[in-house]
């Protein structure tokens, strides 16, 4: 079946603009994660959705970052008033929802803020 998909694959924007990144998880996966990966860095956790529960937003770096997940499926990560330090690859992953479960990652969105 289809894996996790993300769009766009690349996004170039100007400083101060807002961007929206989209993630389509694997059907039936109740857990969805957003991570950020900068060059040479590890995966930085941003936000976690599990079913209909309130999301864990503890990893969001500032209030310019927000995310929502509609209908327990598609998720959108929004970055307002982008800054150059927001440039990174944003990865989405989904899983069945248990802590031992494999995470299935999308290909990522490479964001470049000029």
């Amino acid at each position, binding site marked *: 079946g289809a894996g996790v998909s993300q769009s766009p694959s690349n996004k170039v924007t100007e400083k101060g603009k807002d961007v929206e990144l989209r993630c389509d998880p694997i059907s039936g996966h109740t857990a969805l994660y957003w991570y950020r990966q900068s060059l040479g860095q590890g995966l930085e956790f941003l936000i976690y959705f599990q079913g209909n529960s309130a999301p864990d937003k503890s990893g969001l770096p500032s209030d310019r970052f927000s995310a929502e997940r509609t209908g327990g499926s598609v998720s959108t990560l929004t970055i307002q008033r982008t800054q150059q330090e927001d440039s990174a690859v944003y990865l989405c992953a989904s899983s069945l929802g248990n802590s*031992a479960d494999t995470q299935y990652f999308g290909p990522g969105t490479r964001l470049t803020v000029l």
Partner: protein
Amino acid sequence: SQKIEQNSEALNIQEGKTATLTCNYTNYSPAYLQWYRQDPGRGPVFLLLIRENEKEKRKERLKVTFDTTLKQSLFHITASQPADSATYLCAQSGGSYIPTFGRGTSLIVHP
């Protein structure tokens, strides 16, 4: 807080040799350690999971060990091939639903 540490230096080995990558954790023993492979421009792909009460797990040419005394997991690739060249990430999970990833170690297998 728990940290996952992996060697930041790339590991260079010759084809056919066994590659061994190290993952150390700093505090409590995680319930699970997972290993992922990441190729340039792609998301990580799951390889193996080992539980705290397991000493060793194997899958084809891959082997993972978990030593709670040393606070360490070792990831081995036997009979390595140039196609094994990638970055390998270690992640701990189980305490919460949010895994903690290491920065990864780059493996380069020379023909």
